């Protein structure tokens, strides 16, 4: 029986683990956190079906058979390639000898504090999109005062497309998430006024544009093209926003009860320490460098080390699954050869 170490038990890792274990391989699923399921497990409902994220993760976990072993709360300390095998030492001095490694380390969300002018961690009513999902989960979307918000603004591109914070790339999913969350707020509080501050609305995938249309026609969500320049806090702890309505060519001022920062994806920070151990490297944007961007995007430059999911760049959930299934199939082929 061949064996694989999958590093990262997010949806890509879980999906590949279930595929590979079904093929009869031994799978070690290494997760640095106690909980598995990655970022998706932290989400409330998923676009477009409004399926609960928890159900998606549960399905994945259910699909794992007994050949898949989940090693939660452990990190790779050391890795060495010996005779076409990889010797891994995990935290707690657990040793593994595997035939191949699949990297599914995923992404980190942007630390919103770094965008100082938005006042995350300073102003009472500034939260991130991830925070909002937690509030949705708890059915408790309220301001710091405990009152439902009467006005909410979503700021797109927080930590994305921003050289000042070192992320030039677009995180792909924030636009659609912002529109999703805007609609969800309107569903909760139909009288709440919702504003989306965007630079470009990147509604690139199936159903995305439909939801945008619905956000306009059904929910009357306001879309303002202009990047938030700065936020301030007034005496009532509301957030005062300054942006330009670039379509009107005029500066715009707006006071909201709740400001939601659509934090982007950036390369996983703990990945960097792993790179040298695995013999892989990152591109300038921090995401892992694949062997070929078109034809071999699940391959690393090290034979036997594969990639799947957002460790090679921002992806939507369906894209992540597709990538994980592709990687699993390639790993299987590698093991059988």
């Amino acid at each position, binding site marked *: 029986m061949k064996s694989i170490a999958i590093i990262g038990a997010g949806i890509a890792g879980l999906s590949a683990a279930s595929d590979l274990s079904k093929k009869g391989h031994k799978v070690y699923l290494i997760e640095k956190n106690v909980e598995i399921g990655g970022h998706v497990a932290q989400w409330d409902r998923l676009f477009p079906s409004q399926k609960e994220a928890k159900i998606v993760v549960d399905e994945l976990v259910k699909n794992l058979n007994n050949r898949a072993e989940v090693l939660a709360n452990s990190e790779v300390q050391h890795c060495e390639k010996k005779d076409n095998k990889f010797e891994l030492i995990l935290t707690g001095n657990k040793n593994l000898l595997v035939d191949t490694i699949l990297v599914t380390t995923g992404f980190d969300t942007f630390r919103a*504090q770094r965008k*100082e002018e938005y006042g*995350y961690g300073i102003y009472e009513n500034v939260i991130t999109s991830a925070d909002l999902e937690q509030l949705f989960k708890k059915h408790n979307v309220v301001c710091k005062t405990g009152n439902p918000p009467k006005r909410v603004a979503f700021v797109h591109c927080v930590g994305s497309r921003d050289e000042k914070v070192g992320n030039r790339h677009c995180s792909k999913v924030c636009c659609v998430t912002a529109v999703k969350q805007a609609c969800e707020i309107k569903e909760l509080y139909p009288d709440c006024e919702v504003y989306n501050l965007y630079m470009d609305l990147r509604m690139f995938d199936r159903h995305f544009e439909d939801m945008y249309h619905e956000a306009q026609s059904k929910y009357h969500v306001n879309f303002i093209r202009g990047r938030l320049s*700065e936020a*301030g806090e*007034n005496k009532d702890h509301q957030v005062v926003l300054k942006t330009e309505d670039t379509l009107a060519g005029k500066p715009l001022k707006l006071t909201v009860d709740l400001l939601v920062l659509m934090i982007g994806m950036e390369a996983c920070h703990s990945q960097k320490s792993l790179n040298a151990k695995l013999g892989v490297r990152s591109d300038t944007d921090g995401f892992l460098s694949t062997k070929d961007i078109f034809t071999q995007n699940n391959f690393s430059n090290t034979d036997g080390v594969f990639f799947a999911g957002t460790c090679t760049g921002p992806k939507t959930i369906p894209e992540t699954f597709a990538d994980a299934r592709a990687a699993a199939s390639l790993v299987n082929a590698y093991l059988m050869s």
Partner: protein
Amino acid sequence: MKIEGKKQIWKEYQKEIPDNDFFYVRSCIRQNLFPASEVIFLKILREELGKNVYETPHHTTCGGIGYHSDIVPLETVMTIIARQFALMTEAGFENYACSCITSFGLYSEIIETWNHFPELLEKTRKSLKDATGREFNIPKTLSHASDVIYKLRNEIAEKAKYKLINKHTGKPLKVVEHIGCHYSKMFPNKGVGGAEFPYVLQGMIESWGGEIVDYPERRHCCGFGFRQYLIQANRGYSLANTHKKFESMEPFEPDMIITNCPGCPFFLDRWQYVIAETEGKCYGAKGQGIPVFTYEEVAGMVLGYDPWDLGLQVHQIAVEPLLDKIGIPYNPETKYQGLNGKDLGEPEFPSNIRCC
């Protein structure tokens, strides 16, 4: 407002500020508008804290106001600044401290430009040599005078006679800070605390017992805008910007404003008067206006200097209500007197803004 979040940011923006041996360069605007402030600065450093501050009569304007009025080319100010540096080099100093924010910004910009374009540095050296025969080194540290006071704020606090506390309520005074735009907006890491939540004045106020109020327009420009104020036809712009700031800070009921820029306190002070005289709107408690201070004046106040030695009589918005709040004694009789009690007459009183 969560102070923890700000502390995180302040940690990231700490600049190197020497605590002695400064080559001091004056500010044109300061000397004209708040003549006593630089006197006080030198007095505090030299006499109060025993620091070595060198000044030469040969330094000139940096040309910054001309540069930002676009009548003086970049290469010219670059060379003027090189000359100032040459004076420092000749005097054997390497800690450059300037009194002006426009200068500070310009020095920062030019040093940065020289870093990016070394050929320009060479060209400047040549120009300076050609014009004056002088040579220069780039200073090791570049501080604004407010950086120096910030650095020494705790030493000042130790010697302070008064605290920025309302003696009637025992509560800290609510202070609005106004940072000159060119202090850190261009180069956040050149200012204490960065561009978004600068700490340079907040540090002083906290050390001296006051409390900073953060209001939405705290970062907004006073509206000087160089040509926008200097040309009378454009002053509506200047006025509008200050007005915007006051409308934003008003709900927070601040007791006073502290600034680190030479011109801003003048505008924040005088535009209150103009708004009162043109629109009838008077800010501050009892329509007395919100007094505006330079950081040197505030340092002098806590150290217990005579308010009229600090030049507080040149403010249009009366400072007496604030002095009363802190409990600083003053003699109303001597406010408008010259040296040795010379009678200078009294200024007229404005019709709308209430004076003492």
